[in-house]
């Protein structure tokens, strides 16, 4: 018997006017599972992430997390339940030192972000935890630097550091390699290895070598619906996938 999934997406549909972006998408993520989400441009991958995180509301269907229907919860409550994400284009506070950004994520997780009286610097355990996370990702020396002075690959790592600081149950990685120069890709790959083993991860990625080596299971989207899902080896051989996505004929 399969363990109950940490994330359960049931029949999600989303349309903008007459444009059906997501069509009856259903999938599950179990604890510790790495799932790759691939599909051609415009397949609805990022829209699906936005539906899961609550940025967009679905027309029909539901999202369940840890056995709870979270479809009607706002984004912040979903994050507090353990749903974290990174962005296709990095979203950081450009002038805020990265150490403080990770500390802020920890404060958010602990609920201490509402403290109005104690100084940020007085939360020593928070600072130590932030430094530990940055150290894990090789960013400890850059804790005082703002993202504007970092390379793009390093900014990707900061996004991952922030996600780790939230201690999520589910992490949605939206194209972690997008825009990362070749020279910096190895650093991001190593960072992916450091993510906790019990964390469920859904990764959107166009780098086929990366996603096929990373994922335990693949989901292929095309024109807003699930074209196929299964083990990477199965997806590699799937005729419809090869035709629709990999561009192979015959």
């Amino acid at each position, binding site marked *: 018997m399969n363990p109950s999934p940490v994330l359960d997406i049931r029949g999600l549909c989303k349309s903008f006017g007459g444009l059906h972006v997501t069509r009856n998408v259903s999938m599950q993520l179990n604890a510790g599972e790495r799932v790759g989400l691939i599909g051609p441009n415009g397949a609805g991958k990022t829209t699906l992430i936005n539906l899961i*995180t609550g*940025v967009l509301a679905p027309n029909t269907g539901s999202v369940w997390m840890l056995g709870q229907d979270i479809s009607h919860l*706002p*984004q*912040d*409550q979903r*994050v*507090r339940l353990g749903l*974290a*994400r990174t*962005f296709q284009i990095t*979203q*950081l*506070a*450009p*002038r*805020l*030192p990265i150490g*403080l*950004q990770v*500390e*802020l*994520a920890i*404060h*958010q*997780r602990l609920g*201490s*972000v*509402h*403290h*109005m*009286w*104690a*100084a*940020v*610097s*007085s*939360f020593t355990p928070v600072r130590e935890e932030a430094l530990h996370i940055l150290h894990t990702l090789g960013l400890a020396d850059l804790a*005082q630097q*703002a993202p504007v002075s970092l390379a793009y690959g390093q900014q990707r790592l900061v996004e991952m550091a*922030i996600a780790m600081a*939230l201690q999520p149950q589910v992490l949605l990685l939206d194209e972690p390699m997008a825009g990362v120069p070749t020279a910096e890709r190895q650093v991001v790959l190593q960072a992916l290895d450091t993510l906790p083993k019990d964390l469920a991860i859904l990764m959107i990625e166009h780098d086929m070598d990366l996603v096929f080596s990373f994922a335990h299971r693949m989901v292929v989207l095309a024109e807003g619906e699930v074209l196929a899902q299964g083990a990477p080896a199965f997806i590699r051989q799937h005729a419809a996938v090869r035709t629709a996505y990999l561009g192979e004929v015959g």
Partner: protein
Amino acid sequence: MQLIHHSHQPWRQAIPYVLWVALAVVVYVFFPDQLPLGARIACMAIFVMSLDLVVGYAGLATLGHCAMYGAGAYAAGLWATHVSGDPLVGLLVGAVAGALVAALSGLFLLRFQGLTFLMLTIAVSQILENLASKMRHWTGGDDGLSGFSMGKVLGLASFDLSGRVAFVYAVVVMLLSLWLMRRIMGSPFGLACVGIHENRLRMAALGSSVTAHLQRIYIVAGFFAGVAGALSAQINQIVGLDTLGFDLSAEALVMLVLGGAGHLHGAIAGTLVFMGIHHVASAINPYHWLFIIGALLVAVVLLPRERWSLAWRARLASLGAARVHPSRGVP
């Protein structure tokens, strides 16, 4: 904006406070005829600092901040007229009135962003100004609310004609407000405000309820704007419709930009510069003194703060007067 760090070198934090106190002492001792002006500057500085919380830290552009200032001023004036002339209780009443107006208007305003938010803040202050104008029985309408007198500060010192007590009182309230605001903005709550200013999307992805957080800082800013309004009512012993006027909000924004949004000490400096120039230049040429303010604004806006800062640090370094640490401070 400036991130406020506490702890490691508290003496460094104290330096600006010492400078403000020294300046106040100089004014008190050597310029006794300017004490009423000094008290007005201190009062306005609190208002500009409260505006800084909203504009400089939380990134909400507003031109209706006077709504909270005026509410505080009228509340303190009415309290002194009908209930008690105790200045400190009056300050608290004004602060609560400012916070209430911020809480109620924020529920509606903070659903919007950018230009829409800006225009609606003006609308709220205009509505309050018109209400104050219509409620003549309570507010005195165009004639203003007057005829109330203040009791002794802490039961010790009465407001005198020379303005000495009012000056000291205003400066102490200003410094206390500055300390409180810096304390709040140096907390995780303040850090989250900066985060929202920098990137709302990121903060939402962290699990922050952005609107609720902005509502809280808006109330805090309203509280201090109310303090400023109440203080103004007490030291001038009159409350006019101009406390709810658009001009006040606009001038406060100019003062904030002059001193540097996101720097609470800068808010005081900007107020000092603006009101100082106003006082001196308008006496020389009452029709064209705004040219100087305009020129200063152009200079401040066109020359980025980083350039000022770098030039200043380089100058200090060349004089051997300062060791510049690269990790200190954030523009």
